[in-house]
């Protein structure tokens, strides 16, 4: 099984090398598609292996933790890997179906697989500095993807994105420097032991520094301003994968570091406050917008609030609910942006004033949009309902009524802004600009992810069970430490 975890890194990186070398577009496409499929299969295999037999550790180069770099696949990481690999594959098929993405940009597949490698490494690493490197791999690839085919407006938007990303990386390095000066290690398992002995005031300060660094990447309040500015300017599949994955990797890092390095035994009021503000301000921003992609971009922020809320309870139920919610969001957010891309692809615009009547002209797009939108708003029996219900229950258990009420209020507003897209773009008499029928491949890719989100909704119970076991591991810390620190010896 350790070989499979190693393969998870070798596959996307090998695909990068091959797609750079192969001269023909068809070959590059096949290599990229095969690699993404293989990543998906390998991650699901790892998920089942880990859920049965406990965490898998790979000591890179044969150096044992805490000296070497350890790759750690536990339940949380494996779950995130599987759903991310599914989203990566779906979006890749969509991008190939849209044709002009990889035709106009020869390195598209290489950059895309680099992004995949960064995401995989971020989930697998058991080492703070490698997490930094993974973030950089992922972000650098994302900088390239967002600027590809860029006009003046995209360049401007990307500049904000790149500069914010680099400042966050600088702060990340500062955090690593401080934590290393305080403890003398960057291995997560080792850190969780040694940080307990550090002065609590210093530990809190470092904890908040890391919360802020990952908060910038995850776009929590008040660090989200860059997201609605930059995401909508990229081409549809690129925005979809950013929306589905990148912020969630930030959330993953927040949950991983907060539970492992800076654990709390009672609900954290500041984190819940941030969560509540993120939810409300994100959804209010969404209501104010008049462009599909921008509405959805503000929704990303709002939904991040729910995940942070689950973490803020610091209970098994809360974190399990957050994990279920992330899994649901990765799929549904990707679908929403792909549907937005389909509308844009047909009409050439995503502005609600300029497009209407998609339902009558291209009903298939509407069919794809509806379950995803209802799922985003949290209506049963869709996947969002499972996550939100679990979050509300966890909130009641912790006795935090206020933030639960805020989250329900934000859900109602979410439903409202979804109806805004629905009545604006899908109802009404079809506008003249609806000319291009969506390519079958693009519809199939989106449809596959919609089906996955339906499956998540129907299989809510088993998912919640795995998530509960994962959350138990996260909160007890012992299984993680034990697995990393004694492995191989």
């Amino acid at each position: 099984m350790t070989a499979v975890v190693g393969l998870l890194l070798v596959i996307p990186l090998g695909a990068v090398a091959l797609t750079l070398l192969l001269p023909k577009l068809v070959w590059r496409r096949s290599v990229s598609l095969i690699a993404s499929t293989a990543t998906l299969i390998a991650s699901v295999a790892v998920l089942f292996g880990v859920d049965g037999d406990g965490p898998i550790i790979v000591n890179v180069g044969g150096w044992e933790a805490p000296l070497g770099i350890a790759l750690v696949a536990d339940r949380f990481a494996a779950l995130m890997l599987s759903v991310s690999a599914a989203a990566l594959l779906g979006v890749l098929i969509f991008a190939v179906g849209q044709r002009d993405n990889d035709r106009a940009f020869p390195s598209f597949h290489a950059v895309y697989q680099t992004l995949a490698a960064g995401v995989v490494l971020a989930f697998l690493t058991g080492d703070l500095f490698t997490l930094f490197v993974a973030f950089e791999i992922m972000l650098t690839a994302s900088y390239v993807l967002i600027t590809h085919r860029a006009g003046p407006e995209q360049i401007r938007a990307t500049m904000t994105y790149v500069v914010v990303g680099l400042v966050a990386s600088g702060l990340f390095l500062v955090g690593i420097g401080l934590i290393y000066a305080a403890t003398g290690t960057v291995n997560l398992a080792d850190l969780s032991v040694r940080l307990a002995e550090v002065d609590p005031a210093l530990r809190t300060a470092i904890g908040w520094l890391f919360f802020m660094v990952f908060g910038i990447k995850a776009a929590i309040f008040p660090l989200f301003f860059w997201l609605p500015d930059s995401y909508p300017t990229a081409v549809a599949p690129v925005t979809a994968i950013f929306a589905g994955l990148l912020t969630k990797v930030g959330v993953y890092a927040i949950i991983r570091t907060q539970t492992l390095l800076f654990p709390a035994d009672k609900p954290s009021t500041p984190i819940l406050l941030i969560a509540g503000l993120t939810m409300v301000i994100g959804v209010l921003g969404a209501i104010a917008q008049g462009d599909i992609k921008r509405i959805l971009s503000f929704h990303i922020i709002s939904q991040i609030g729910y995940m942070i809320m689950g973490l803020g309870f610091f209970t098994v139920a809360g974190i399990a609910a957050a994990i279920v919610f992330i899994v649901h969001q990765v799929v549904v957010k990707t679908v929403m942006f792909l549907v937005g891309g389909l509308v844009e692809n047909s009409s050439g615009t995503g502005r609600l004033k300029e497009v209407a009547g998609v339902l009558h002209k291209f009903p298939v797009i509407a069919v794809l949009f509806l379950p995803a939108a209802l799922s985003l708003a949290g209506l049963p029996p869709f996947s969002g309902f499972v996550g939100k219900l679990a979050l509300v229950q966890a909130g009641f258990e912790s006795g935090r009524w206020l933030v639960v009420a805020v989250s329900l209020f934000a859900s109602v507003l979410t439903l409202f802004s979804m109806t805004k897209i629905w009545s604006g773009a899908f109802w009404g008499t079809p506008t003249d600009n609806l000319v291009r029928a969506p390519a079958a491949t693009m519809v199939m890719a989106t449809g596959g992810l919609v089906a996955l989100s339906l499956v998540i909704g129907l299989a809510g119970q088993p998912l919640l069970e795995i998530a509960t076991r994962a959350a138990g591991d996260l909160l007890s810390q012992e299984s993680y430490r034990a697995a990393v620190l004694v492995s191989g010896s």
Partner: protein
Amino acid sequence: MNVRQSLLAETGSRTVVPTIFIVSLFLLVVGHDAPGGGFVGGLLAGAALLVVFLSGGRNEVRTLLPLHPRSLVGLGMAVSITVASLGLVFGSSFLDAGKITLDLWLVGEISAGSSLLFDVGVYLVVVGLVATVLMELGRPEESAS
């Protein structure tokens, strides 16, 4: 593109460039157990490319490289990843390094590790990246449309 070639720069680069390349190769080869390595060597080779660029322009750089810079990066990554995954094949860990020692009769004993091959990959990637930067940023000015 109308590049005014400076005789001094061109003559100078003819002696300087091969020297830098040789030193960069030296750094690459000793890198597995002495200061040096693929990255430093690659950067130095990149510096040589920079000298070529300054004296001869973009096309000179392109003719000097055996492959398109993109393929150079790809080849380098392929080499490094293959070496890194050898560990998986032989049952030890990902990125594990092996070492062989050869006793060559007159030359004496030399040793080389698989990390040297890995470094060759890194070297190619860095050279390819520097070349890409030179080719892309050294392009004649595009006008705003």
